[in-house]
């Protein structure tokens, strides 16, 4: 997309890249993980680790297909976690069935459309309880800095900062939990090769 800034990707650029390439995929990846991951695999942990890997990458300009890349990262993390747990004699067991499903791969048949993503953002903000809602509208829709928001609302900057943090916390949670409502996404262009129907 944008020209590769190979050496010095600033965190904000990386955040942008993740926002554009990976976030739309996250709920699908989570749904897929719930389907294929053996018991004992902590999905939230896997997702956090996967984002960490993307964050720490020196350069992402070589990643032609971020979806496939993210999927590979997640898959590897699941396998790692299964191995680790198996060594520790923990609950997660690697049965051939789940391994097979893991190898079968991930087909992102229902990526959120741009419109749905925007709707999701809008919902995320407008569902917040006050005063976080007002603060997020001012910060994110009207693009006012925290300092100005504090002045306009007549509260301390510290208060605004706390509400931003709490509101964002709620939104993070919505982003992990929203896949159930978002499954009616854009009309797929081509009928997906049904992945074998093995996971009824």
């Amino acid at each position, binding site marked *: *997309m944008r020209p590769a800034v190979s050496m010095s990707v600033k965190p904000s650029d990386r955040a942008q890249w993740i926002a554009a390439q990976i976030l739309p995929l996250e709920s699908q990846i989570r749904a897929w993980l719930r389907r294929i991951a053996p018991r004992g695999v902590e999905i939230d942990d896997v997702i956090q680790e996967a984002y960490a890997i993307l964050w720490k990458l020196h350069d992402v300009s070589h990643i032609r*297909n971020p979806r496939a890349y993210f999927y590979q990262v997640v898959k590897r993390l699941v396998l790692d976690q299964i191995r680790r747990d198996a060594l520790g004699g923990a609950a997660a067991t690697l049965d051939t069935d789940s391994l097979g499903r893991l190898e079968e791969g991930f087909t992102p048949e229902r990526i959120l459309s*741009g*419109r749905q993503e925007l709707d999701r953002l809008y919902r995320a903000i407008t569902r917040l309880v006050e005063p976080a809602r007002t603060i997020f509208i001012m910060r994110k829709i*009207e693009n006012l800095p925290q300092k100005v928001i504090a002045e306009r609302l007549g509260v301390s900057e510290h208060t605004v900062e706390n509400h931003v943090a709490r509101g*964002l916390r709620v939104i993070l949670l919505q982003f992990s939990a929203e896949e159930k409502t978002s499954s009616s996404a854009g*009309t797929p262009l*081509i009928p997906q090769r049904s992945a074998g129907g093995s996971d009824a």
Partner: protein
Amino acid sequence: MREPADIIDSQASGWVSRLDRGLSTEEEATLSTWLAADSRHCGAFARAQAIWRDLDRAQVFQIAEELRHAPSRAAREQNNRPRRWVAAAVLFVSMAGVAGWYSYPRNAVSTAAGEVRQWPLSDGSRVVLDARSRITIQFEPATRLVRLESGQALFEVAKDAARPFIVVAGPYHVRAVGTAFLVNIESASQAEVTVTKGTVQIWSESDATPRSLSAGGHVALANGKIAPSEELTHEQLERLIDWRSGVLNLTGKTLAQAVAELNRYNQLHVAVDDTNLASEPLIGQVSDSDPEAFAQAAASMLGAHVRRDGDRLILERGGKK
């Protein structure tokens, strides 16, 4: 034993909020330590930052609320949000630079492939510029002129009755008069104007009598002339502003049109060497940032296949599958 993911998320949210208001040197050090302590801290922080960043796109709802049926005026007033945007305009242009028109260039802003950006204008209006687009802004005491030189742009116009806001694209002029409207200009002499709310006035250099067009109306402009207007459905209106949201709507477009649009957003270009193929209609929608997926999908829909040639993906017929 392991820190629960939701505790980490709380901490990450705190850091993103602090980062947003600016960190002290001491805090920067604390953040580094925290990030280094556990890779999941880092991942949660990355995700929180990305979502925080993603939320910036909610700014389009300033416009969207106008473009749709201004859904919740009550809610807006409840939130003490100033109702500043009285007009929003979307201009679509896909013409090669047209020279001339005025002799004193002012602020020019442009975007690269795949980049959609937003700028505030000095009068309180804002412009959202689509990929590979360029405008020049020329604000004078009596008028606010914006010239769209290439690509497409969406304007949110702040009300100022004494200073009309006029968007010029090729030979066409569109004047905002307390409205929301879309303009789609396809070449130096071809354009379309769609009004979603209120009324606009349209004229061209060769036909200076302004024509009014009101909500739901749509006109085609060609060769300096303004055709009779027709009505558009809500879905059609929505489709016209989809470019801001990363989705490329294919329905109603030919392969050639979809390719032209897609190529504006991406470095990797798609080419169609067969004119019959190029005129085939498509349906559905795809991500506007994934030419490969688009090419594969279009190929399977049209019975063509994709050949990679350097920086281009060529769609052609005649292959086996």
